[in-house]
């Protein structure tokens, strides 16, 4: 009896010993490097290429200049290649002035933009503005503006001028 019990116990001990295993870890940790990069774009610049010219107008006869006409106003914007910009007109006068209190009504503005000064334009309404991209190759954007002057029948002769302000701003896209 005693031997049997002892042998059973030894068997259990032997079985427990056979189940014990060793786990070996070849490598407990690993590292690697991620590179973060960014390119900061240059500033956005604007330059007036030419003003909006109506030439000599006749009293009581409207004169219209389209954005595609040779005397349309042109502004060149330049900045980061392919960057999206919002274009807006911050100043669209209702009248031109001769500096001596005489005014010449101007209105019916129209606008367009293109990647080059001679390129095909995409039209837009100045009051609404436009969102587009600077050219991917040159970083340029040309904005054109036209309008209509309406001289009165008794319009005083002289030279009338006004200022139209066009703005472009990066959207970050």
């Amino acid at each position, binding site marked *: 009896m005693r031997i049997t019990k002892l042998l059973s116990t030894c068997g259990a001990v032997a079985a427990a010993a056979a189940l014990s295993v060793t786990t070996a*870890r070849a490598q407990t940790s690993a590292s*690697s490097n991620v590179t973060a990069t960014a*390119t900061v774009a240059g500033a956005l610049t604007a330059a007036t290429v030419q003003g909006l010219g109506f030439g000599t107008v006749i009293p009581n006869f409207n004169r219209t200049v389209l954005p595609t006409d040779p005397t349309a106003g042109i502004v060149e914007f330049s900045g980061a290649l392919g960057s999206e910009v919002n274009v807006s007109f911050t100043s669209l006068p209702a009248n031109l002035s001769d500096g001596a209190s005489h005014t010449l009504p101007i209105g019916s503005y129209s606008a367009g933009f293109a990647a080059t000064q001679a390129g095909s334009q995409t039209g837009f309404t100045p009051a609404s503005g436009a969102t587009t991209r600077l050219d991917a190759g040159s970083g340029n954007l040309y904005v054109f503006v036209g309008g209509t002057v309406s001289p009165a029948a008794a319009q005083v002769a002289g030279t009338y001028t006004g200022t139209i302000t066009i703005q472009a701003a990066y959207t970050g896209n």
Partner: protein
Amino acid sequence: MNGTHGRLAWLAVAAMVAAASAGRAVPAVAQQGLTVAVQHNLTFGLVIPGLPTTISTTDALDAAQVEVRGQSGAQVQVSFVLPAALAHPRGASLPLLFGPSDGGYAAASNTVLTAFDPRAPLVTTLSGTGLLYLVLGGTVQPGARQTVGSYSATITVTVAYLD
């Protein structure tokens, strides 16, 4: 009688112990080593002065992607060394920020990510195939007069088994 039985019992025990310790190999299981492979770096691209640029973990083209391989089902700890800025060769710094949702992990590369804060260690489990995918986004904050040009920084990711 009892003495004879006692000696026999002693000898039986000795024999069994000897068998357990001599000539019988103790099996060992080698746990698979860990590897960490960067599959894609963190790319902010063109950033505009004055406009912060954020790369989300869901941005498959620009977010950093890291593949971890190791022992199936093993518990691991992931930690990042996150720089505070990217550096320009001429010394300018571009601030780099990380938030609570700028880390993501998944068991497979094309599955939904679980968000985590990369600023703190992540404890998770390798998949049944021993894989773990990590994704990292972030935000750069260029100043209005930020120096123009290219900036870069190194982010170190470390993965370790947890016992």
